[in-house]
């Protein structure tokens, strides 16, 4: 079928601001939006710039706004979005070119969460693994799925308002460790997250949860972090 694709274009070396360009391509309804982008880049306009790698929703490269909502281009099929598609870059991050945004602030926020295991206690005497029950493991399973695509953070109205907000993706990273029974850094992370630019900026708008291509219950995880600050309970 014929698909009409309207794409946001911005070439920093020529344009003062972005504009839209419309392309018509032949595509199958089971094609990914990414396939359509590749086709346009391959045959119509090679200068179209976007990131991609894995092509099946596990690397987090190609988050973008498709028909007004954040998606991974490689995990969105034509049959899900119809024959008229508008593709725009993520909101709230600088557009570097076409659909490519500057991801550095996003990763900087991630790094503020001390996103690594903190545990200075001695290892088990037998030198083997630290024990963890399947239930304890399940406690933070959700948040380990994050591929850092930024679809959530760039859909959050609080992040649009100010990029000082750490954003849902960073909170998910913190959640991953706070509720890991082997980790001992929960306190430090909670202190960071209790700052004005931390979880206080989340007003449960749920855009993040709806945008997440990994179906992580982000708002719930943020809620759990908020409650942990109040009760101190980490289980």
């Amino acid at each position, binding site marked *: 079928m014929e698909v009409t694709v309207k794409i946001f274009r911005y070439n920093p070396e020529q344009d003062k601001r972005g504009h839209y360009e419309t392309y018509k391509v032949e595509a199958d309804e089971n094609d990914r939006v990414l396939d359509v982008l590749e086709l346009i880049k391959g045959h119509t306009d090679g200068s179209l710039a976007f990131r991609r790698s894995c092509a099946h929703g596990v690397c987090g490269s190609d988050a973008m706004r498709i028909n007004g909502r954040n998606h991974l281009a490689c995990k969105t099929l034509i049959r899900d979005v119809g024959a008229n598609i508008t593709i725009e870059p993520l909101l709230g991050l600088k557009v570097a070119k076409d659909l490519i945004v500057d991801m550095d602030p996003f990763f900087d926020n991630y790094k503020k969460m001390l996103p690594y295991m903190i545990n200075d206690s001695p290892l088990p005497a037998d030198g083997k693994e630290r024990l963890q029950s399947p239930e304890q493991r399940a406690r933070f399973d959700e948040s380990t799925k994050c591929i850092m695509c930024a679809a959530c953070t760039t859909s959050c109205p609080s992040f649009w308002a100010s990029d000082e907000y750490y954003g849902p993706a960073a909170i998910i990273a913190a959640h991953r460790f706070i509720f890991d029974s082997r980790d001992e850094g929960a306190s430090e992370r909670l202190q960071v997250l209790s700052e004005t630019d931390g979880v206080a900026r989340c007003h*449960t*708008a749920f855009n993040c949860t709806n945008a997440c291509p990994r179906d992580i219950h982000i708002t719930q995880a943020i809620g759990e972090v908020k409650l942990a600050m109040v009760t101190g309970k980490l289980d």
Partner: protein
Amino acid sequence: MGLNRNVDLLTGLRYKGQGPYLTFILHRIGGSALFIFFTLYILTLAGVEFAHALFSNALVQIVIVVLGIFHAINGLRITILDLFPKLIQHYRVAINIEWAVYILICGFAIFVVLRSAAGG
């Protein structure tokens, strides 16, 4: 280099965040409206004529009822989910219930306001 990151209000509002995002927007508008309402309320109590005149306007009253009741009911939903994060999974159900309750109460309130406006 690069385009500014600013997301203007309209772009933000056009984001297709669906129902839950709408409740957030309405909650915010409602909260702000209630804040103004509260300010006027105090001024009215203090006897400021202009504030009182505003309050007597049926249209103003309806706006306040619509936004205020939404804020109160949505606020209750937020609070319940916040205190029991496990329930957040079911946020869509929660929001549907909320709309049902809201339409009932709000309908009744508008009726009351209109009746008073007509009768008073």
